[in-house]
């Protein structure tokens, strides 16, 4: 069981790091939002799942509560993270930031 927990933690850490790397490497706001949101949400899911599995299997008396808390944090992150990214992307477009080397921009044509 320890192997499973450590594997989950490792996968989560790797994907979180990928998100941070994407934040540095991509050229403009929209692509950065892509990388940051997808990777950190996915990585955090794995990390929190690792904690939940640990709580269920080895947590002792309070382990169940630990698992429930981890799942709740997971649900909140899944609800709020994409919404915040959407709000930021929309705000960036409205404040006049052009997509980097865009081949097509239908939202600009609409205005």
């Amino acid at each position, binding site marked *: 069981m320890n192997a499973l927990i450590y594997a989950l933690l490792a996968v989560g850490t790797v994907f979180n790091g990928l998100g941070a790397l994407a934040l540095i490497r991509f050229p403009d706001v929209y692509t950065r939002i892509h990388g940051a949101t997808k990777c950190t949400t996915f990585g955090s899911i794995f990390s929190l799942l690792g904690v939940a599995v640990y709580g269920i299997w080895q947590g002792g008396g309070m382990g169940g509560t630990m698992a429930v808390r981890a799942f709740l944090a997971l649900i909140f992150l899944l*609800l*709020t993270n994409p*919404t915040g990214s*959407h*709000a930021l992307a*929309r705000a960036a477009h409205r404040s006049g930031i052009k997509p980097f080397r865009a081949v097509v921009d239908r939202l600009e044509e609409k205005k």
Partner: protein
Amino acid sequence: MSVVVRTIARMLVPVGLVFGAYVIMHGHLTPGGGFQGGAVAASALALILVSFSAKELKPVKGLLSALESTGGVAFVVFAFLGIGFTFFANAIAGMGGLFGQPVDYGPNPGYLNTSGTLPLMNWAVGLKVLAGLGSVVLLFALFGEGEDDR
């Protein structure tokens, strides 16, 4: 804001209020208490403010100021309960019955009716902080919006 943000805010505002109430309610058992829970619930009000418009919350302003005064007065009244001993003494703790079974040593969640006046004071301070911080954010948002009377 867009339709996505508004729908998620509709879902999360009751959750935030319930979570704030949970933090206040368990102030004497787990970390948290009146101030913290009130801040969480006030953040739910701030979420309404930002997802919809400030005018949505304008009718609540009188209620908020009433709640703040009520919380302050209730806090002092609960403090006066211990006047036989000292001010703020927890007179009814461990009395048995409705208020206050004595507790075991160590964390034991789930026994809500322990510790006498503490939960009541938590609720008073929680309502006060909720109303105070909420009305501060509301006043900031309403300032300079149109010519109507505030």
